[in-house]
């Protein structure tokens, strides 16, 4: 070993954070990708689904490979593959090539993340500290991902999200290369070659269900903010930052609760409560999303750490069982996205129709001049056509406002009423999906309750 532990620990944590951030980093860029690549909501969902699906499938085999070829080499090669695939993602001009590159990215990521868990105990000094550091790095990456992605999308482009990952992955790989060289020189490929015990079924099942609920919360909230309420990616990034912020704060709470089952159950209930709150928003106001986000954030910190600790506690090799937790979490995200996407895309189309009908009723029943009504109806129709199925902002259809103060007041009232109907439609469209997400979170209580060995 030639490297000092501190930079190596930082590099290992960076590698885990970077890869796990990728399961959610593009969430805020999806609407931009959707428009730029001319695809559908269901199609663009696969930019997320493909990465998570490959991570779910590859995590355990990658962990076995890491133990066979050496975790240093596996991590270094994994990060190199991840960097190359990130470059390909950034250069993609078609949805199909972007999705293919995302699959390769996930393959490299799975190798890196599971190998790092094998490298960490030797670097930080104990298995328990290694597990905690690994889980914290992953949670931080996953939590910060959407905000970073949103900022980059707004300030530069969606492609920059992937291009920026190339130097970061290389920076993380450099200190790990020393371990790889050491492995090559000594022929030592793993610290321990015990047979892998059975994975903790209930903890991993609960992880999958909770991850599905959390994915629903994040994905749906972003779509609601950008596609429904028409916030910019940077605005949505600021709003959804509440969830990771409270996840980080929640992870620092010292609750003195030794029972992992209780922490997991409380976390799952809070995630479900937050999702139920998002499904019952009483108006289209950003501030109203904050209390539910606080619940989801604190809940995810409690439940993910309790279940990850449980799944890894007393089990060896760590990389294999870490692979199982990665697999469970990403499989949950895939199930959440695939189950909810058709539901909310159908709901949003129906609610859009209802909102437009309600908005037209507002125009027809208003007291503005009939000829002006006709002109407004035409302009509103044009706006709806321009928006290709999205919930439109209707303000520009009312410009220029009439000069007569009385007419102007009537038109402004009409515009606000109409936008209110559209906001109602957009918000209501997401309610069933948030409700289903809440149900998924509650279902996680079953494996949490059934787990016999969940107490630490």
């Amino acid at each position, binding site marked *: 070993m030639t490297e000092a532990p501190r930079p190596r620990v930082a590099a290992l944590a960076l590698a885990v954070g970077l890869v796990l951030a990728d399961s959610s980093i593009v969430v805020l860029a999806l609407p931009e990708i959707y428009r730029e690549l001319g695809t559908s909501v269901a199609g663009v969902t696969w930019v997320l689904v493909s990465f998570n699906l490959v991570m779910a499938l590859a995590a355990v085999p990658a962990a076995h490979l890491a133990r066979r070829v050496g975790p240093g080499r596996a991590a270094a090669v994994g990060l190199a593959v991840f960097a190359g695939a990130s470059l390909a993602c950034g250069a993609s001009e078609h949805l199909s090539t972007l999705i293919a590159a995302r699959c390769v990215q996930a393959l490299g990521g799975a190798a890196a993340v599971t190998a790092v868990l094998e490298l960490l105990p030797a670097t930080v000094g104990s298995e328990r500290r290694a597990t905690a550091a690994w889980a914290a790095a992953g949670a931080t990456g996953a939590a910060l991902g959407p905000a970073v992605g949103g900022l980059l999308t707004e300030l530069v482009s969606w492609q920059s999200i992937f291009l920026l990952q190339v130097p970061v992955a290389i920076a993380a790989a450099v200190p790990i290369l020393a371990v790889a060289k050491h492995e090559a020189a000594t022929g030592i490929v793993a610290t321990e070659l015990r047979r892998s015990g059975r994975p903790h079924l209930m903890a991993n099942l609960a992880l999958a269900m909770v991850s599905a609920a959390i994915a629903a919360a994040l994905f749906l909230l972003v779509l609601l903010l950008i596609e429904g309420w028409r916030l910019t990616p940077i605005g949505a990034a600021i709003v959804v930052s509440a969830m990771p912020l409270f996840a980080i704060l929640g992870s620092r709470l010292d609750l003195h609760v030794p029972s992992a089952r209780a922490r997991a159950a409380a976390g799952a209930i809070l995630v479900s409560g937050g999702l139920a709150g998002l499904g019952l*928003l009483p108006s289209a106001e950003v501030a109203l999303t904050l209390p539910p986000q606080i619940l989801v954030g604190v809940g995810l910190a409690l439940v993910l750490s309790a279940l990850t600790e449980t799944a890894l506690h007393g089990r060896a090799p760590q990389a294999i069982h870490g692979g199982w937790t990665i697999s469970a979490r990403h499989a949950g995200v895939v199930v959440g996205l695939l189950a909810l996407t058709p539901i909310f895309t159908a709901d949003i189309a129906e609610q859009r129709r209802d909102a437009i009908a309600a908005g037209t009723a507002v125009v027809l029943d208003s007291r503005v001049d*009939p000829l002006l009504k006709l002109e407004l*109806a035409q302009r509103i129709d044009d706006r709806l056509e321009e928006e290709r199925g999205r919930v439109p902002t209707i303000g520009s259809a009312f410009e220029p406002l009439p000069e007569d103060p009385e007419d102007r007041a009537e038109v402004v009232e009409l515009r606000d009423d109409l936008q209110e109907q559209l906001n109602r439609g957009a918000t209501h469209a997401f309610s069933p999906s948030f409700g289903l997400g809440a149900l998924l979170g509650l279902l996680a209580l079953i494996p949490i309750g059934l787990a016999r060995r969940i107490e630490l």
Partner: protein
Amino acid sequence: MSALGRGGWLVVGAIAVSVALSGAYLAAGGSSYAPAKTQDPCQDRPWRDPGSLQEIAEQFSLSALDGAACRLGVTRETLARALATPESRERFTERYGIDDPELARAIRAGLVRAVDDAEEAGALSPFLAGPLRETVKQVPLDQAIALIQDARTLLDSAQSFLGPAQGLLDQFLP
């Protein structure tokens, strides 16, 4: 505290916070925050008190839209958007599989209903309503659409031509 333990209280706290948030949002109208439902066009829609020709024309148009929409089996709002431009009309007829003669019949039926409603609301006298009813039954499609969009010209003409005659009738008939 001791019966439940810290873990039990943590779970109880999580349930309480979650129920409180959902309850607060429900109480604030969370379950009913949805677009307003549009009214069935086949049902009667009472007229507001018309104070001017413009207001009569406006309500006349709305009644006509209701009548036509009822006949076509769509909402008044869908039809209003469909008739806004020739392009939107074409999209509408394609989507619903309606041809121009069928659309014309529906709009004429709507105009007849508008005359009936105007008469019932006291905005048109029976003397004016009769000829108007016969007139709107004959108008071609484009004119029928123009009438639905702005009935002021029709009503103004009817008042100009038939108003003095009605005055004479009022004078000589019991």
